């Protein structure tokens, strides 16, 4: 069985050589190169067509996330494992969107990396366990209220609080602030504040804009 060929892309020499030592100690792994700059990384990836690309996010001049699609274009067979200090979900999301198969935190030391390489080589995706829970949660959130699936007007409508939605509908129907204030037991000034806030959020300047918006949304009938 041939060894899994790995290219390490990280600008920290110490870490990079440490990892290389760690990986080389494994019988089935082989580090074919270490790149500390984006240009070198692109060149080596193209030359070597490695099985695994270990990619750091913070690189000099360019983010590893930026580099990801380009690396995959040059070496399409490679599987990319992001290896980073950043624990923020946003990086993880972006990395997976960009085509990474693994996401490992540097602070985990070598252990997680080994798991990741093995999993990825078997065709799985590996995500640092400590980040997985949050990742699944964000995934649920975005599928539930996915902004991409909604029209711009719907998204705007969702910006408004319930009170604001109520007041906007009232305004669109032609009620005055006083009438609304009496209807929902608020002071007239409060109603006016909600109204002006809703207008600010929606970016409208006149009542006509508001009415048109509400009509487009079909929240009221003409």
């Amino acid at each position: 069985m041939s060894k899994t060929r790995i290219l390490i892309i990280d600008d920290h020499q110490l870490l990079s050589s440490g990892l290389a030592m760690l990986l080389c100690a494994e019988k089935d792994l082989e580090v074919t190169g270490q790149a500390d700059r984006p240009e070198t990384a692109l060149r080596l990836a193209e030359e070597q067509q490695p099985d695994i690309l270990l990619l750091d996010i913070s690189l000099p001049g360019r983010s590893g996330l930026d580099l990801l699609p380009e690396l995959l274009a040059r070496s399409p067979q490679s599987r990319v494992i992001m290896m980073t200090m950043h624990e923020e979900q946003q990086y993880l999301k972006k990395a997976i969107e960009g085509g990474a198969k693994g996401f490992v935190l540097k602070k985990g030391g070598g252990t997680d990396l080994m798991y990741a390489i093995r999993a990825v080589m078997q065709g799985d995706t590996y995500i640092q366990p400590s980040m997985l829970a949050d990742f699944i949660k964000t995934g649920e959130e975005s599928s539930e209220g996915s902004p991409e699936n909604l029209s711009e007007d719907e998204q705007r409508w969702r910006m408004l609080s319930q009170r604001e939605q109520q007041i906007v509908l009232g305004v669109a129907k032609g009620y005055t602030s006083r009438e609304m204030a009496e209807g929902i037991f608020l002071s007239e000034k409060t109603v006016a504040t909600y109204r002006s806030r809703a207008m600010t959020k929606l970016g409208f300047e006149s009542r006509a804009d508001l009415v048109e918006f509400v009509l487009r949304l079909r929240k009221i009938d003409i």
Partner: protein
Amino acid sequence: MPVALISVPAFFRQAVRRVRSVLLSVPLKLKILGLALALILLFGAVTIYKVQAALSENFDAFLQEESRFVATELSYQSHDYLLINDMYGLTQMLRNTVQNRPDLRYVFVRNAEGQVVAHTFEGGFPGDLLEKISGLSPQRSEPRLLRTNEGSIWEAEAGISNGNEGAVVAGVKGDSLRRQIGVITRSLARTTLLVAIFGALLSLGLTWLITRPVTRLLEATRAVRRGDYSVRLDPAESRDELGKLMEGFNAMVGSLVIAEKARLGKEYLQRDFLHRVMAGQEGERKRIARELHDQTGQALASFMVDLKVLENAQSVNDRGQGITRLRKAITEEMEAIHDLAVALRPTVLDDLGLVPAVEMLARNFEKRHRIQVRLNFLGFLDRRLELCLETCVYRIIQEALTNIVKHAQATEVTIFLEGGEKTLRGGVEDNGRGFEPENIDQAKHMGIYGMRERIQLLGGSFHIDSDKGIGAMISFEIPIKQEKCHE
């Protein structure tokens, strides 16, 4: 020729321009004085000229008539004297007449032979007059004008008894009339002069009245230029246009004072803000230094000790436990450093942009403070904006969240951002207890002042919309295109 045609109007134009420039350069006082004097003198001169002309026109006619009348009158009286040949009486009579009539220069009587028999000349009959005597004419002849060394004299001759017995010749010089004209002229001239003096005094008084407020205004303007805003003019001093000007001046100084006060206030705030920013920066550095020294440094030192312990470890078991402990400690330390770095500057902002950075901020905020954050992003997708703009908006949202934790007692926060074509709009709203924006003391709440400053630096606008009981909303709108981006 064409040259001449062009140069003449050019010359006039030049002359007019020169006169104009001279008139403009002369002080107001002299202008009014000059105008008054010129008018008075012109009027006086015209009057004198007109009077003279009118008098002179009648003067000769009068003298002719006078000479004719005197000659005729005397011809009747002389008749008797000639009859009795009383030449002495005749001469006396003639002399009396000359004395009584101031215009009459001389009279003489000729007999039928043409010889002069009586005359009024003191020193004998002048020879050259004798030469001019014509022959006797039977009828009364028209008066004639004699040019003598004493001046023009109208001479008329009247025959005695139709000229049969001689003739009376009367010469009228009109001295007294001329004197009278002179008297009138002089008196007119004197009057003109008096009026001119009076007019000059009057115009000086008038100019004083006019220029005094102007001088006041000038002095006041100078005072204001020196920075003395306490000057005020009394418009009651002159209730005309200048009074209005003074009122306007007072109003102007008034608004200058207000503007100056506002400027000073703003300057104070700015300086205060700068101080606080600098103090804040220094505090932050102090905190980082302490953190690095006390926390990171100590941790590294403890790692060294642990490594030493590992080196000396006897059993495999001890070594394994030591390694596990060390790994845990290092992991903790890495987290601490990471948190410190993120607090200073979230790399997400640089690497991924505003929206992921705000998402991260919001998630961390939710975890730490148990306040729900609703996020609304519109028109971004993977769009990146100028870094200074992203930093500005990030820091504003950060500041707003800090304020909400400190003051609002909110349970829900809404953050919205909309990236348009030309502007970036956004805001942070909470459902806390709210406040009245008018009652915010800017000096105490540098947070709000800082937000406003940041946004104004990028040419944007900032609003606070809040009321007691219904939470607060800060909102902003910043141009996407930034000319200067210092980041």
